[in-house]
């Protein structure tokens, strides 16, 4: 008996494939990256379409092929979720202080350069 993966799982797998790709990739590339799952091309296209509607993926056309890329990196999205969660806290100062406390020293120096 084969376990049918849910759409959510497929979306995760496709996003992971896009995040680990260096450049924009075709649906075929995604299909190859997920070869172990034996997905039909139409399935990959459906999932990519859903992700595009959610604003997580952009599509560009080069010649006859459509190429897909993630609109933002994994870390950017995690940061967005964390911002959402921390925005709800009463004491933004304290939340930010905790956030800064979690940054490694070398990155902290880089952040300081950016701010200055």
């Amino acid at each position: 008996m084969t376990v049918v993966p849910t759409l959510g799982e497929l979306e995760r797998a496709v996003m992971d494939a896009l995040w680990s790709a260096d450049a924009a990739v075709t649906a075929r590339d995604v299909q190859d990256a997920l070869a172990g799952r034996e997905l039909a091309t139409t399935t990959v296209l459906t999932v990519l379409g859903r992700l595009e509607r959610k604003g997580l993926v952009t599509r560009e056309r080069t010649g006859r092929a459509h190429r897909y890329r993630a609109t933002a990196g994994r870390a950017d999205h995690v940061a967005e979720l964390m911002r959402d969660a921390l925005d709800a806290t009463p004491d933004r100062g304290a939340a930010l202080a905790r956030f800064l406390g979690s940054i490694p020293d070398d990155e902290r120096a880089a952040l300081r350069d950016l701010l200055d």
Partner: protein
Amino acid sequence: MELPALALLVFGVALAEPVSRLLARARWPGRDPVGALLLWQAIGLAGGLALLGAGLIYGLAPLGAPPAALDAALAELGAGRLPALRVPHVVALVLTAALALRLLGVLVAVTVRTLRGRARHRELLDLLATPWPAAPGARVLEHPVPVAYCLPGLRSRLVVSAGVLDCLDVDQVWAVLAHERTHLRERHDLVVLPFVAWGATAPFVRGMVCAQFAVATLIEMRADDVAVRQASPQQLSGALAAMGGVAPAAALSSFTAALHRRLARIVEPPAPLPLALRALVRLVAAVLVAVPLLAVLG
């Protein structure tokens, strides 16, 4: 007819301003958070109904008392005639309609904005967070800052950051999850929603802002009370202290700055209100809502 309208107006204004402020400052709600939450809902509902009722009663006064006056006015309009009202009455009715539309409009806008934000947040969560095997239903977000929160709704989510798992032991995580699960199970997001909306309607009324803050604090107390029963006071307070007290919900917008007071309440809980006083609180809540309803519906 001016006297009942005036009395209702005073009643509504009193609820929105001095009563809200007094209740927000009172200490007994910590001894009966559920009763206090019921009272806040009653104050919000009764205040709104009273202001609308006052405008309606005054505006329709020349036609008699509502609800008969309302029927009479509608019958006149239906027959293509303008009801025999003078300028002040028309002004009162227009203001009443404007207030009703504004309250409703803000409530709808806040609800839509909240639902959209939640849906977006949930989409991203489902892509990024991984299930935490130690607690069914909980997901872990790879981020070093310790945050635990819940995303309420029909398809609710329970989230802890990797930072939480780093700085708490498993029992403490359980206590925090019990707290967040209470928010979800008792739909505290819906308890807070009207106050967020009323706060947005009239941010210049201090009583409204006090109410919003007090209700947010009360749902945290309630969730603490339940979590302490499922885990232990030491586990919960230890967890909150370790996390620096930033354990509230994202979409739930809870905000309690008074971490120390909260921790003290968890470790040394005040005696619950006696049964008779609890009953009284609920009775007062019911009476508050009944007053404007009876005044308008007769």
